[in-house]
């Protein structure tokens, strides 16, 4: 399974600390990773921003931050963090659409990461 580590680190994640969180169990990680794509919060964040529902946007982003943090998806996590803070402060001057776009780009990378990991693991 050394491939897992290489792929994960090539993506920009910290293999040791992330998998430590899953008690070193890559299978468990992948199972939860799969659940990540069923998670509603990405979509909720998008629609909330579109509808300028800042409170809902904050809640979705906040949850997303927790989940991506737990999954050790560092680049996506950083992108989410960038939107959580202004949403929390509700400053009204931030270009949320741009920040969301960056999140979408990172999300796309995460999708690819998942494919690589599952192919690599022969799933």
């Amino acid at each position, binding site marked *: 399974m050394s491939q897992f580590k290489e792929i994960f680190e090539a993506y920009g994640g910290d293999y040791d600390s992330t998998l*430590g*969180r*899953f*008690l070193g*169990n890559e299978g*468990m990680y992948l*199972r*939860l990773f799969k*659940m*990540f794509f*069923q*998670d509603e*919060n990405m979509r909720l964040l998008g629609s909330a921003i579109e509808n300028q529902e800042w409170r809902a946007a904050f*809640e979705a982003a*906040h*949850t997303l*931050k*927790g*989940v991506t*943090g*737990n*999954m*050790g998806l560092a680049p996506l996590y950083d992108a989410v*963090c960038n939107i*959580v803070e202004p949403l*929390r402060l509700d400053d009204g001057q931030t270009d949320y659409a741009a920040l969301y776009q960056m999140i979408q780009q990172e999300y796309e990378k995460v999708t690819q990461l998942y494919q690589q990991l599952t192919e690599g693991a022969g799933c």
Partner: protein
Amino acid sequence: MMSKKKILVVEDNNINRAMLASILDSQYEVLEAENGQEALDVLEQYKDEISLILLDIIMPVMDGYTFLSIVKENPNYASVPVIVTTQNDGESDEVAALSQGAADFVGKPYKPQIILHRVASIINLRETAAMVNQFKYDRLTGLYGKEYFYKSAREFIMKNPEKQYDIVCSDIENFKLINDVFGVPAGDALLCGIAQIYTQYVNAHGICSHFHADQFVCLMEHDVVEYSDDFFAQVNAKINGLTKVKNVSLKWGVYVISSAENVPVEQMCDRALLAARSIKGQYGKYFSYYDATLRNQLLRNQEITNEMEKALLEEQFVVYLQPKYKTTTRELCGAEALVRWIHPEWGFQSPGEFIPLFEKNGFITKLDQYVWKKVCMLLHEWDQKGLRSIPVSVNVSRADIYNVNLADILKGLAETYNLEPSRIHLEVTESAYTEDPKQIIETMGCLRDLGFMVEMDDFGSGYSSLNMLNQLPLDVLKLDMKFIQSEMAKPAEQGILRFIMDLAHWMNLYVVAEGVESREQLERLGELGCDYVQGYYLAKPMPSAAFEQLLQQLDAIKDME
């Protein structure tokens, strides 16, 4: 096998919840809930079987704060510790959660080892606290338990050095009887009522506790109430108005804490209880202060108790004999054996002090047996010397009847020393008969059948039942000295002594009058037909050697005749 402890994970996000579950489920049984409402349903189902709740603070349907406030307000759940999971991106959530009663928090991303350790230590902490809590309060009354009271009382006194405090305690007379007659629930209701009354009196000026059974102890400021029999009589009346249990009589003991004395709280309470106990059975007496006399009494009793076994081994107990005479002829015709304690350091000890103590602690049975044996040895010795065979009375205590195989022992002694059982007179007090007539009638009846003579001691000192007198296996009625003295003070026609003499004789009993102190008394007893007399006027109790001389003189006179 012990079942795993249950942890409830409340988290709306599937991934986070699955992660927490996988971290915990090697060591715990994990219950999951997606939101606050679901979590409440799970709580309702499992209640305090749940050892800990891991709660996400931001959730739809019912958020973590609402959930937390509901849980902490419900006494069924309030003791279940809650750890809040936060985002780790600001102190505000953490502070808010902790201030609403969360035990701790863990941040995201999760650190499994930290979560496991925090969970374990908080469960452990709460379990320990719950145990302490159980001891802290008495289950029945809700007052402090004994140990916790000791601890709190110490703190209370220390924190308020400018104030003076007392320890006030109470005992209920015959509480076991109350439980027995009215039932345990009624007894419990009474105790709860007393707890309430004490709490009202003491209020913020001290603390109350229920030690056990009917024992309550309070620490209170010195001048909150004025201790008097009137005051405690009022409290007693109040307590009687509480429940259907009537005629409850309480005794209070007060220990005034003096800063000059360095006495531990435990001992203060013992002293207050001792004071309460000292007035047990005294009608109209409601309270007593502890004073040094009580303590000295207790210490003295302890000293005697420490010494008694050794004293028996070293033969410090000595048999004295008080002669008994035939009223008509003044002829020596027997003796009563009385025990004297001559301690090598303390000297002559008063039987009035040690006998009641031995009766209480049970040592009396050993002492009685010792006396029986000594008396039998003396009788045997006199027989060997060819002296007149007179009978000697020995005491049989109530405890003897329960503690030993009385008949075998006495029969054995009579055989060993080759004595007719009729030479040994057994004195049993009247009060022993009235307290447990059946057992005593049976035992004494058996002894009488073996040939021993049975005497009823102290007749007239307590309640006398003529009906019972008729049923008892008796040979001799021994009249109490105080009874004789008070009867003697009355004109002959008003007294009932003659009636008692006639009754005894009608029942074929001999009558012995004890405590004859004057010539006048002796003459009067003679007129009344009393058979035998004993008392200081005739002869004091004396050592056996002196008594033996009397016996020898008696025979010498006889020989001369």
